[in-house]
């Protein structure tokens, strides 16, 4: 599934259409001093999501914390380098406060993006499906 996400990402980045930030996107900017720090921010984000959706079981009844459907609906992308960008792309169900950790609600594409030379990592949340032509490359200057 992760490779599928990366394929979509590669396709989006390969699109000739360069889009600006979609109107539906919510962007949080995280200041960073360097590319190394940006990498760490993105890796922390990915690790946090993996811990959030770590499966566990009730010790008495054996009930799983997360259903299979819920884990499928919350698909966590890897941290990766793509050209001049560092990024991760995940599909997450977010609540009305844009917080992850839910099984029902609105699915979003959540992108953590760093563009070379910038002093920030952008956390971009866009309701699914994202607008046609949307791709992180278009978001870098």
């Amino acid at each position: 599934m992760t490779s599928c996400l990366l394929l979509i990402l590669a396709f989006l980045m390969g699109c000739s259409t360069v889009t600006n930030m979609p109107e539906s996107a919510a962007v949080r900017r995280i200041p960073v001093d360097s590319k190394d720090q940006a990498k760490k921010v993105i890796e922390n984000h990915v690790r946090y999501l993996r811990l959030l959706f770590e499966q566990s079981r009730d010790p008495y009844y054996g009930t799983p914390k997360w259903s299979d459907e819920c884990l499928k609906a919350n698909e966590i992308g890897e941290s990766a380098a793509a050209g001049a960008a560092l990024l991760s792309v995940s599909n997450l169900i977010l609540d009305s406060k844009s917080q992850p950790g839910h099984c029902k609600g609105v699915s979003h594409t959540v992108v953590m993006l760093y563009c070379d030379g910038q002093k920030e990592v952008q956390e971009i949340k866009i309701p699914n499906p994202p607008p046609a032509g949307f791709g992180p490359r278009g978001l870098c200057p």
Partner: protein
Amino acid sequence: MRLWMCLLVVFVSGPSYGRGLEKFWNHQLVTGCTVLDFNDTILAQLPGKFCAFFDDGSFVSASDTHLRFITKDNEVKWEIPGHFHHQLNLSIDKTKILALGSRIFPVKSNGSFRSDRLMVVDLAGKILHEADSEEVLKTTGIRWLAWEMTQAFREITGAGIEMSHFNSFYEIPKNPNPAFKAGGYIVNGHSQGSFIFSPDLQSVTLAPPLRIAFLNNSHDVQVTERGNLLLFVNKHRDGRHENPFSTVNEVDPRTQKSVFEFSATPKELFYSEYCGGVQELDGDHVLISDQLTGTFVYATKRKKILSAVRKTHKLNNTPGQAQQVKLFDLGKFLTSRGIKF
């Protein structure tokens, strides 16, 4: 005119079920690592099975595999491997973490056993003090439980039998009872009694046994500022040893009398076989959570439930159980993480 009068009465008096609840309304309920408000809104879902929170947005998370400190920027600052269970608390001054862990060890021809490992950890991840239930039981002369663990518990821990089943771990506050020295710890052992530890966990004695809970299941045992014990008693039985029921009590161990008792009518309607939590909110109100049905704010003087929250036991729209539910003012924690509430 009548309508306006009615509205005025409602406005002035407020909903009757909530009277007395106002001062807790802006606080948050916590079950495991999920934060909710009284309106059933989930404010935050955090990683782990049990969490403890700090005003700066950081938190400690305990799971089947690790104890972790996670910053407000979601970075894992440190982690301690191990199986953690039942609850995770902070010291009264919030500078130490009180964790209930496990030790798995082989026993000749009997497979693997589980003992409880108590840990006091500082906020930098340094284990300050440790104690193991094997030594605790030896010192206090209490027999091993030798309980066969559930299938799920076996798969989680890799152990088949447990010698103890510690389920709560609290710092003892200032109080007038000489049996409970402030700064030490009280740890409850399911069906084995409660243990009183020195601040360094190096010395241990058995807490004064309560008739009400002796050799019964109990959870979430705490010392109150009055020197009493507040606890969730899971299993009483009637005179014929049938029809189990639960109660929540504050008991003066010096007199064995209950200062208050919460139970249902008929009593059998309130029963938690495995879990249960209680928290003193002020001199009158307590928060009670049972295993399967909900969380209740109970006014002890009026003997009235002010609020019954069901969502704590129905996360992700799936009915489930709660080990315990607690109430905290997490306003600064949520704000620090950018969560509006």
